[in-house]
């Protein structure tokens, strides 16, 4: 069995009296889409933040790429190849769509402290950035300000930025949110192909997408993983139905 790229063991985070993640253990294997579902407020985004290094876990261990990353901050983890999207789009609003991607591209190239060479005529950055916009279907918006594109388009841009980072694992926090029916369909197809590039930890409430994509699903309720298994396992699980799926099962 191949080694997990990302592996959490007994990760916990407490906010005051609330335990947002409670002894969570899960793995992300190469080539897989691992969906993380659960009621609102279950702690999914919190877990993503813990993995990305935006909040420090109270206890537990996170390994990534064969290495403990507990002590690394968000910047270092990103540089190691963890790319995440945000549940609420978090972009550079004044930048053009293209600049948003170029900035990520430049971070990957590792050369930030260059003071003289103009960046926006640097083909080694522009071309790959355009290619990513192409992939998510935003190429025709490249020159618009990120603040001026529609909500759904911003979600696509989030995706393009993550792609530009050429990560070793994706952490996607509700990428379908805000996408129209057509957009969701396209993105589903897209993610399906993406897993070959890097495995995906997918937080999503769109069950059509989750059931279509996930190799494995973990269900988080009140910070705890109450079940992990294949799509069919989870669909048939009564607890999950009650806590989360309702009639969607």
């Amino acid at each position: 069995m191949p080694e997990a790229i990302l592996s959490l063991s007994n990760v916990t985070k407490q906010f005051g009296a609330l335990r947002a993640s409670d002894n969570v253990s899960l793995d992300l294997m190469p080539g897989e889409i691992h969906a993380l579902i659960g009621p609102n407020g279950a702690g999914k985004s919190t877990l993503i933040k813990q993995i990305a290094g935006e909040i420090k876990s109270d206890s537990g261990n996170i390994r990534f790429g064969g290495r403990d990353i507990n002590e690394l901050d968000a910047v270092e983890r990103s540089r190691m190849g963890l790319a995440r999207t945000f549940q609420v789009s978090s972009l550079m609003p004044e930048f053009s769509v293209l600049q948003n991607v170029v900035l990520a591209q430049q971070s990957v190239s590792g050369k930030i402290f260059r003071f003289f060479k103009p960046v926006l005529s640097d083909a080694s950055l522009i071309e790959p950035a355009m290619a990513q916009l192409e992939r998510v279907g935003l190429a025709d918006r490249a020159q618009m300000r990120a603040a001026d594109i529609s909500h759904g388009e911003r979600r696509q841009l989030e995706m393009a930025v993550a792609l530009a980072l050429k990560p070793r694992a994706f952490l996607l926090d509700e990428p379908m949110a805000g996408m129209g029916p057509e957009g969701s369909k396209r993105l589903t197809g897209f993610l399906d192909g993406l897993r070959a590039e890097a495995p995906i930890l997918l937080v999503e409430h769109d069950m059509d997408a989750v059931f279509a994509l996930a190799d494995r699903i973990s269900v988080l309720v009140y910070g705890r993983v109450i079940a992990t298994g294949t799509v069919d396992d989870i669909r048939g699980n009564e607890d999950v139905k009650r806590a989360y799926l309702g009639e969607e099962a």
Partner: protein
Amino acid sequence: MSALLEVSGITAFYGASQALFGVDLIVNEGEAVALMGRNGMGKTTTIKTICRMMSHRDGEVRFADTDLAKLPSHKAARLGIGLVPEGRRCFARLSVMENLMAAARAGEWDFDRVADLFPRLAERRDQKAMTLSGGEQQMLAIGRALMTNPRLLILDEATEGLAPVVRQEIWAAINRLKQSGLSILVVDKSLKELSGVADRYVVVEKGVTAWTGAVGDLTDDLADRYLGV
């Protein structure tokens, strides 16, 4: 049945760039209308115009027999337009309770009723909105709009990011609101769920009303053409 909201032929601009080229839309008293269209087609812009968060150039927006053209946002709201905006826009530093109380106006909706609708909000009543989970914030935004006791409730992607159970609850709640006589204008991506609530569909494409009709009239052909499903 009389028109509560009547939008006719409006155009609207962001600076120099035009976003709406002629949107027509009617919501009758007690009716639920779904506004649909692909990403970036002008749904939110239309809603902002109705709520006077931006002004239209040509055309007319009438609500409860009042021309909204000259009204500031708060006056339009006081006529009875309650908005659940895209992206929730809860007041981040205020607690759940304070978010609700800030919006409160006299009427049948009060904290207790909102708490009945969304028990989760009652549990979190003293938590700051910015630390709520996405779904909790969404509930808060709906609750807040209800606290204004509106005649027309406008929901812009109100179920985005909600768990299926909650979404079902919210649709059920919206249905109940409709039953109770509230008029509703709703934007959402899920056709399936919309069809359970809406009386009519209005589809915008590139800033123009492209199709209007009863729910049953939206054939698969049309859905594919306008919505890509």
